[in-house]
């Protein structure tokens, strides 16, 4: 559906315009991957500058650290992704665990009004901007990282790309983009009122990244 | 005024060796309203052993018409200037905006005129704004120190963004002993003149000029110095209207007066 002839008329006008030959830009190659250590450090400083919390859970089990976070943040209900983290079971004094395993239409009321925190697994991260990547909506529903007031994200620091260019070069996105690829750099925020930064505008007001050695 | 930004502004310019002769393009503003500044340019250069040639048939670079959307009229005026500067000497222009017009816009004005384009291009290459000519080419020695004074420097937008000479005047003034040069708040902002803009949009122009003058006065400087006659007309007019004691002076006049050896 389009306005009648709009497509043809617009394209015809553009084609009637004088042609120009401007070569594709030669873009500098993605920077050489620094060491894992340096990339992690860069990522961490970047995302912390965006007001996220990063907790290194590699020396302990991430479940232990998660329990501490839930206690500290008084998380009463925690929503998990559809199939991942199957071995995460409720623990004494811990939050009620809910699983995002049906279409959102059946979860909406709960998701918007009854869930304190969403738990997701990042598909990677970008060092130079401090950015988490969620690249598979099948595994990680889009709204799980968006709707609950707290977003807890597990990240394996071995999957940190040096830059966005690096990520584009190393992933199969160019051949097959996921229906939704999401980059996250910190909690939701706005400076729309008198340039004063406020967190938790429409998305999570807190973002907690747990560094794990694998889930 | 008008800033052409297609040329890489960060590309440093190659300067010629100190010449024996130069042309002076005096600008229509200095001709009528501040000839002392033009004479000071001559005095400064002659003291450094440079002969200054001032073609008597020069009038204006054509900028007022050009920036108002009248390229034919600008071309008619500019075309009369071209043959006056046909020699090889550098052309010293004591104004960033006229310098910018000649350096960047004359070649465009004559782009379709095969007879005049080579001369317009040759002139464009030889145009030097006064402060860059003094700093990078003449490298003057200042015979006299002058008394302790605090001045505030206003740099025109064309010097800053079109001629890329915004640091030259500052560097020159820094060479003078006993002189404190201060910068006003929002130093890089326009004074609000803009040629025809000041007439087409008088309220806007006045509002911008008024803020600039506030900032200049807030520095408690005794004098304001600028290398652009257009900005000086606007700022001095505004200062005078509000009864301020502060006045602006052309860089050339300031340099000459301050460093003149006692007679």
């Amino acid at each position, binding site marked *: 559906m389009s306005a009648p002839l709009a497509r043809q008329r617009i394209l015809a006008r*553009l084609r009637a315009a004088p042609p*120009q030959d401007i070569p594709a830009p030669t873009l500098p190659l993605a920077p050489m991957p620094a060491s894992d250590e340096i990339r992690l450090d860069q990522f961490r400083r970047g995302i912390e500058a965006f007001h996220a919390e990063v907790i290194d859970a590699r020396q302990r089990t991430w479940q232990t650290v998660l329990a501490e976070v839930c206690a500290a943040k008084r998380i009463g209900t925690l929503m998990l992704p559809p199939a991942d983290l199957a071995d995460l079971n409720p623990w004494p004094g811990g939050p009620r665990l809910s699983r995002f395993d049906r279409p959102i239409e059946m979860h909406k009321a709960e998701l918007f009004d009854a869930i304190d925190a969403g738990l997701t697994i990042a598909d990677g991260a970008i060092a130079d901007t401090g950015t988490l990547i969620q690249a598979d909506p099948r595994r990680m529903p889009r709204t799980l990282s968006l709707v609950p007031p707290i977003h807890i994200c597990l990240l394996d620091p071995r999957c940190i790309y040096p830059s966005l260019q690096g990520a584009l070069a190393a992933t199969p996105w160019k051949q097959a983009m996921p229906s*939704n*690829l999401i980059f996250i750099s910190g909690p939701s925020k706005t400076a729309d009122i008198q340039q004063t930064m406020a967190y938790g505008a429409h998305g999570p007001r807190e973002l907690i990244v747990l560094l794990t050695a694998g889930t | 005024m008008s800033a052409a930004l297609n040329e890489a502004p960060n590309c440093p310019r190659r300067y010629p060796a100190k010449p024996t002769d130069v042309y002076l393009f005096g600008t229509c503003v200095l001709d009528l309203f501040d*000839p002392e500044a033009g004479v000071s340019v001559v005095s400064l250069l002659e003291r450094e052993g440079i002969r200054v040639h001032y073609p008597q048939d020069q009038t204006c670079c054509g900028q007022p018409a050009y920036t108002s959307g009248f390229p034919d009229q600008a071309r008619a005026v500019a075309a009369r200037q071209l043959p006056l500067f046909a020699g090889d000497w550098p052309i010293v222009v004591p104004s960033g905006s006229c310098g910018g017009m000649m350096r960047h816009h004359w070649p465009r004005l004559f782009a379709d005129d095969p007879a005049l384009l080579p001369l317009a291009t040759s002139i464009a290459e030889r145009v030097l704004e006064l402060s860059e000519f003094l700093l990078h080419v003449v490298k003057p020695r200042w015979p006299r120190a002058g008394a302790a004074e605090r001045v505030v420097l206003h740099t025109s937008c064309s010097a800053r963004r079109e001629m890329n000479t915004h640091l030259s005047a500052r560097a020159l003034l820094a060479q003078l002993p006993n002189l404190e040069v201060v910068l006003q708040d929002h130093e890089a902002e326009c004074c609000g003149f803009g040629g025809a*803009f*000041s007439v*087409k949009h008088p309220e806007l122009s006045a509002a*911008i000029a008024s803020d600039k003058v506030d900032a200049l006065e807030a520095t408690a400087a005794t004098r304001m110095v600028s290398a652009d006659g257009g900005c000086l007309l606007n700022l001095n007019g505004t200062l005078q209207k509000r009864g301020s004691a502060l006045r602006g002076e052309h860089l050339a006049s300031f340099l000459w007066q301050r460093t003149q050896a006692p007679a």
Partner: protein
Amino acid sequence: MNAPTPIRFHANVRGVLANPVLRASFRGAMDFLMARRAAQFPAADAFEALRAQGEQIRQHSLARLPELLETLEANLQRNGIQVHWAETPLQACRLIIDLATRAGGDLVVKGKSMVSEEIELNHALEAAGIGALESDMGEYIVQLAGEKPSHIIMPAIHKTKEDIARLFADKVPGVDYTDSVDELIQIGRRVLRDKFRDTRVGLSGVNIAVAETGTLCLVENEGNGRMCTTVPDVHIAITGIEKVVARLEHVPPLLTLLTRSATGQAATTYFNWISGPRRAGELDGPREVHLVLLDNGRSGAYADIRLRATLQCIRCGACMNHCPVYARIGGHAYGTTYPGPIGQIVSPHMLGLEATQDLVTASSLCGACGEVCPVKIPIPDLLLQLRQQSQGNAAAPLLPGAGRGRKALQSISYQLFAWLYARPALYRLFSFVATRLRAFTPARQGVWTGSRAPLRPAARSLHERMKSRAGESCA
């Protein structure tokens, strides 16, 4: 209703210049945004290299625009995104009304989209009995106040928190006055959250469209953009035809230029790449995604190789943040959807040069806009081009309304100027007379002396001074 329009620019300017509170608020906001941006580009060389890339990506994309639009369309369709074309705002509004109606929606929840402002979508929807709710906090505030955005990135930049506190207390049911920014934001969050949950149609703009993958990219901080494009059943995106790039690797330079130039951020909170509706096995996401491609005069600017550069714009707003005129009057006075320097060069091809004749002259040509533009649009040069067209002094192709800015007095003045200044002997006579008459300088010289002392010629012109010197030294 006396909404600002570009044709009343002078009156609009006088109104806002008389309001010191508003002026202080703009100045503070622009200083804030300039400082934020400056902190992101500490090294001039690195910035120059990056903007040269940005410029070339945009110019390369525009050079191939018709072909890229077809590739984009084919790849979007392959991804299950439906593509619609509109030549005019009216056509675009009708398309969107149709789509919303078919989705059974009586409300459209909107993410930030300047193109939707450009087509005045909210009015059109309301006229069709469909509500429109802005969800970006700034846009929500502006809509609640019955106003339009005054800045393309920070729509409510003209309002103080006290203004917003009063507005919320008046207009949002059950809200008491609070001027705590956190509390005000939480009020907005509560109101809009219910709408995100229950509304069937979401609308967004597009920051970059990638042809080779059929992807729509959206930049935002609040999460409302993700809400609008994810939770409702139907997502409608609208964008201008110029926003397309060829390849995925063209995104990173533009993205970093955009976020750093706009709000001084290395990255925004969210960067959302949408390449289709919910797929089999996915548990959320819209069931339908539509893209409306709008022309609205863009192909007219495209036809002129000189004005084509206006289409390079990535809508960062840096030019307005650095503009001495915008900083004095803010966005509303322009009376156009896009204010500031970028508005001065894109509004003529959208609205014609008759309505915008006072906008193309409203610049001192200081060059600050061109200096900060992340894709190197030569805004001052384009204003010169548009002034020539407005005065009827340019060759075809011309925008609608070319020549309508021509005023007899001004044309005669410049003809007189050319006549006098192209005749050296006559000019010297003129300056001789002017200097001899300096005692008779009029105290009032039109608008010049409104804020300045009169211009008074010197006692002798530089020509005369140089002539008398010639006797002593060289000629």
